[in-house]
């Protein structure tokens, strides 16, 4: 059993310790926000925070993750209020959204250590592939997220899910869709 902390909860994985963390998260922990895009470190769709650093979870084995603090997109904020999440929505740095969780994690790690990143900083810290081509908007969004983190600006582009199911469904079409099945 490999032990680690995932999204603030102690977790033990009863899996081969050589299993890539990505598959443990997706298949065993049902944390499907981290995506498989290539499995070999090329794309960044699988990025999670490992002790605060954005790493590609397809390249880390469970054994290597032992004892560490893992944060996935699901654990970044309770109510999608993280500045990066807000700014990504506001700047429309999202299209199909498949690369988005990985990019959000890379950007969150950047903002954490440097809330006032230059364009070059952003381009270096966010190497993720986005085939839809949100790149130019990413720089703007992440710098804006930095301003929010520094309390120079406020945005609330992504409304927190309300207690009201209808309200949540309107904000997140998937919620309603899943409840209907």
């Amino acid at each position: 059993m490999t032990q680690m902390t995932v999204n603030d909860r102690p977790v033990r994985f009863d899996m081969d310790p050589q299993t890539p963390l990505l598959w443990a998260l997706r298949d065993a922990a049902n944390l499907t926000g981290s995506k498989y895009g290539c499995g070999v470190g090329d794309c960044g769709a699988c990025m999670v925070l490992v002790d605060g650093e954005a790493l590609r979870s397809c390249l880390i084995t469970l054994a290597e993750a032992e004892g560490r603090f893992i944060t996935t997109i699901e654990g970044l904020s309770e109510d999608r209020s993280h500045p990066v999440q807000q700014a990504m929505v506001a700047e429309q740095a999202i299209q199909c959204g498949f690369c988005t969780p990985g990019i959000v994690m890379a950007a969150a790690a950047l903002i954490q250590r440097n809330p006032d990143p230059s364009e070059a900083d952003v381009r270096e810290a966010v190497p993720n592939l986005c085939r839809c081509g949100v790149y130019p908007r990413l720089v703007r969004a992440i710098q804006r997220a930095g301003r929010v983190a520094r309390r120079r600006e406020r945005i609330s582009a992504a409304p927190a899910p309300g207690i009201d199911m209808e309200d949540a469904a309107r904000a997140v079409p998937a919620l309603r869709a899943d409840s209907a099945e």
Partner: protein
Amino acid sequence: MTAHLKQDKPDTRNLLDKMRQGVIGKPLSRPDGPAKVSGTAPYTADHAVENCLEGVLVTATIVRGEVADIDAQSVLTMPGVVAVIDDERLTARAAQGGADEAPEQPARKVGYFGQPIALVVAESFEEARDAAKQLKVDYRADDLSDIPLDPVQTDPEPQDDGTRQGDLAHAMTSAAHSVDLTYRTEGHASAAMEPHAAIAEWDGKRLTVHASLQMLNHNIIELADALDVKEEDIRLISRYVGGGFGSKLGISEETVAACVAAMELGRPVRVVMSRQQVFQCIMRRSETKQRLRLAADGDGKLIGFGHEARVSNLPGEDFAEPVLQSSEFLYAAENRLLQLEVARIHRMTAGSVRAPGEAVGMPALEAAMDVLAEKAGIDPVELRLRNIPDKHPSEGLPFSSHKLAECLKQGAEAFGWDSGPRKPRQRREGEWWIGTGMASAARVHNIEEAKARVTLKADGTALVETDMTDIGTGTYSILGQIAGEMLGLPVEKVLVELGDTRLPRGSGSGGSWGAASVGSAVFVACNRLRERLAGKVGIAADDLVLKDGTAGNDLRLTDLLDGEDLCEEGHYEPGEIEDDYTAAGFGAFFAQVRVNRFTGETRVDRMLGAFGFGRVLNEKTARSQCLGGITWSIGAALTESLLFDPVDGHLVNCDLAEYHVPVHRDIPDVEVIMVEERDPAASPIQAKGIGELGMCGGAGAIANAIYDACGARLFEFPMTPDRVLSALPE
């Protein structure tokens, strides 16, 4: 009830402009954004299905021939392995877009290296993958020396009669200025970030299938045909699609395989392609060879226009990269010759990749125009302006609308285009030569039949339902905006449900037709709802003012509805407008690049696109599409190229490390100008498509900028450093 519109005439009423809600066209954020930034948007492979088995495709290690024997026993004793599926119904290729029939079957007949031939199913993905690798397969393989693999060494067949008008050869000899140039472009992959995936469940009678697809309205027909199951017994679900770009237009191998396995085993089965399999088993954009002949008179007016292209595909595939699509109508010239040929070779299937045809045809044409401009001593922008036809040059049809001139002018102005005399190598900064270039953009406008249901609920909200998909394009956004505008509701009061074949058939997302087609279906439904509401008020529909949930004055919609839901299914069909007009989106690209004089590396410093594509339905999502297209233009210009092994034709660079899509650092700040217009003959919402226009010519602007920077004229795309270096003049 159903409201039907077959559009035979342009719709000049511009009804959307007469509405009062004020949401149409606005840069509203997409409603699916919060789910996407929080990782809760469920893509196909993310669905948790109980008791689900995992399937891994086994792929062929021969080029052409037949599977003689599969030794299932060789893996059935391995841990967790449940079955080896090699059923007759497994498909060898993905369906072409809109095929409406099963793709090549059975998978046991092999036509290209890497083709799926079987599916290994196990309790876990790891077990299935291991067994798939160990599976012993015997083939009856054709001799490699008998198999055509190289388009250059294969006699091509003409795709159709082509266009022949006047005498091009004579125009070339009598022209004041002419160019006769041959270009080559290499293959492209869609490389959508979400790999193809499917989860199939079978209850003994009915199939429920989560799959990552672009056109459920076609896919359900293809799947039913492939499986020999009735359409009524299939439900396809595709609510979130992680990009498509053509690769998910037709039903693909993993979906059929998951269904066959689920039906045989009586348990749900999930199949996710590996990134390598996506590259090899789906679609490539064909490589092309193109000959361009342009003949101009002393004023730079084209008198001759020749564009011939050779592309390739597998035997039996109808699709031929339509390289000449925009060349048919972009520039006037009396003497024309356009001809497309296809070489039949045994590389993986060629099919649609974003902007099939124009993505490679336009850059070659626009690069040739630049050479002509130089020869004639005319500014490249001016040369284009002088050659805009007033009707389709060979068919004579009027254009539905035409914004090329405006795009060229507005783009040039915003970019700061210098229309003075041009000469390469005029600007250098350290190791870098700097130059600018431009190109036109053009892409045919397609529109398709579509249905959508709109329910105006008694509580004053609306529900829009269709099996249309949102592949990142913004369908959730724009359908909410169209319904909101027509029914006088803020978008928060409109719920859009997509991607489920239990809902009315949409148009599917492909060929940039989604927004205009399914948007028109929503419009048609809402229009009828407005008439019914007007009837309730006792006024004419034209006089009905709906805004913020009221029907004028103090009349609240909820009171008017009085506990009743109103529901209409809108059914839109393009009619004679398709035959009476040439409809296309137009635009212009401007690029500034720097070329390293020692390494030949090209960097794009800045790029601008100006586009006219009818009504803008949502300024944010439309701009996103333009930006995405320009990003692809940069990839096609500089880095993207599929490479095939000369011995067995297999795709060599089948991953994201070796197939170079643009990365964050490749893309500068890109500027987009949307030249607003209304195109009444394009659709009743006066909108055209924008998903592809942004990459129809952009690579040509970069080629022309490279020449302006350093004097290297390139005739091959992508323009990699080695090619730039060898084209550099002394």
